[in-house]
């Protein structure tokens, strides 16, 4: 992929979006049969599946905790999900992302309800186009709800960033690679509590504030789509 001359032309991004516009978002609750809960998310060209198993007995046993349940997250990218084949198996990036996804979800769970148990969340990226961790969190939250696990609320996530000096919502791979900044955010949308916050690149204080504004609005949209997906599956007609 070569860098295009400009990433923003006449106030529009290369895919025609306005700076504060999200890619198309499709969420399906419960696409998998065997899992206790599952969800499928398409965010632009990202395709991500999440499955939840549990609460179930912890193996290995010594990792169980006597006073609460362990949330175990595994984020993985399929070898065919990126331009150049990715070697299968965990790497440093996926281990870090697994950790921050877990920490993004933990605040909405009642882990003290299930001592000695584990809730497994598997996030599989089938096709990647920047924002896979945010799509993964959106899928995982819906999958947890689909599994019937008590939650305070859903967790909604979106990335913001800066390309060609403009703060934008929901970066594509091209914008992530050739832009200046990427900042994934996850939050409990109704309570406006941030549960994931990472950033790399360059932000001044004003840009950072503007980016937070965009992220808040983006997460609200995601939250609506997540609720809609659960309603689709569970609403009595």
């Amino acid at each position: 992929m070569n860098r295009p001359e400009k990433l923003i032309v006449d106030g529009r991004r290369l895919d025609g979006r306005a700076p504060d516009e999200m890619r198309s978002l499709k969420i399906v609750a419960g696409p998998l049969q065997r899992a206790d809960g599952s969800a499928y998310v398409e965010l632009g060209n990202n395709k991500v599946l999440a499955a939840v198993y549990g609460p179930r007995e912890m193996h290995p046993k010594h990792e169980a905790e006597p006073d609460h349940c362990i949330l175990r997250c595994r984020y993985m990218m399929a070898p065919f999900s990126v331009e150049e084949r990715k070697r299968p198996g965990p790497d440093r990036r996926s281990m870090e992302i697994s950790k921050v996804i877990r920490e993004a979800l933990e605040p909405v769970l009642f882990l003290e309800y299930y001592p000695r148990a584990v809730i497994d969340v598997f996030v599989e990226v089938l096709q990647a186009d920047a924002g896979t961790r945010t799509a993964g969190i959106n899928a995982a939250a819906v999958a947890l709800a689909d599994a019937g696990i008590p939650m305070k609320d859903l967790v909604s996530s979106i990335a913001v960033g800066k390309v060609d000096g403009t703060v934008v919502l929901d970066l594509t791979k091209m914008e992530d690679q050739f832009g200046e900044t990427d900042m994934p955010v996850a939050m409990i949308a109704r309570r406006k509590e941030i549960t994931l916050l990472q950033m790399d690149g360059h932000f001044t204080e004003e840009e950072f504030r503007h980016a937070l504004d965009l992220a808040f609005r983006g997460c609200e949209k995601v939250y609506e789509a997540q609720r809609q997906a659960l309603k689709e599956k569970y609403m009595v007609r």
Partner: protein
Amino acid sequence: MEVISRIRRDYILHLLQQGKRVDGRAFDQFRTVTVEKGLIKTANGSAMVKIGGTQVMAGVKIEKGEPFPDQPEEGILVVNAELLPLASPTFEPGPPSEEAIELARVVDRGIRESKCIELEKMAITPGEEVWTVFIDIYVLDHDGNLIDASALAALSALIDTKPPADEAWKLPGFSLRKFPVAVTLAKINGQLLVDPCLEEEQVMDARLTMTFTEDGALCAMQKGGSGSLTREDVERAFRMARQKSEELRRLAGGP
């Protein structure tokens, strides 16, 4: 995992309610920070940073290596962190833990995204050979806030770095364009405090690390822990961390 007794936890939380920290510091006060540079003769650059009881050593080695195919003319930066078993009863030998990987990647991000190292000038034979800058972080004693200590040790070691004695080194020396400094705040019961000590880390709900360059711009950020942050927390943390980053940068010998 670190364990803390309930009575100790209650005591720390109770003190915080009265506006006091367990070691008597103000909420925006670091423990004593010391930076010693150039301790290791076999490294191109090295530094030992102590923040209270936490001790972290960083060593820089510059060696020839193969470039990445998509960036044939760029030098390579590798940041690795070792949580040595001698540093804490909870650190075990073996492959790097999630915690060690996150630590290395947060430090890496601050250095990489600030563009402080002139990696794009470090080609030897484009496409074949480039310089690789290895930053190895050695955690020797874990008394909390490993991220800030490690990031400061890495920056200090880079400031201390002399170029390799090799004809292939074409740059005039080894200089830094920017001086990234990480500052971590812990959120405990809704209160924000800088430089959490080990006990504070054990009771904290969440932490936020922000890395600033000397022009006051943010270049990297990482939230950790299973709690959440409000927008007010984040904006307050931004100002506290930016101010503290200036103090730490001077200790490292930066501008």
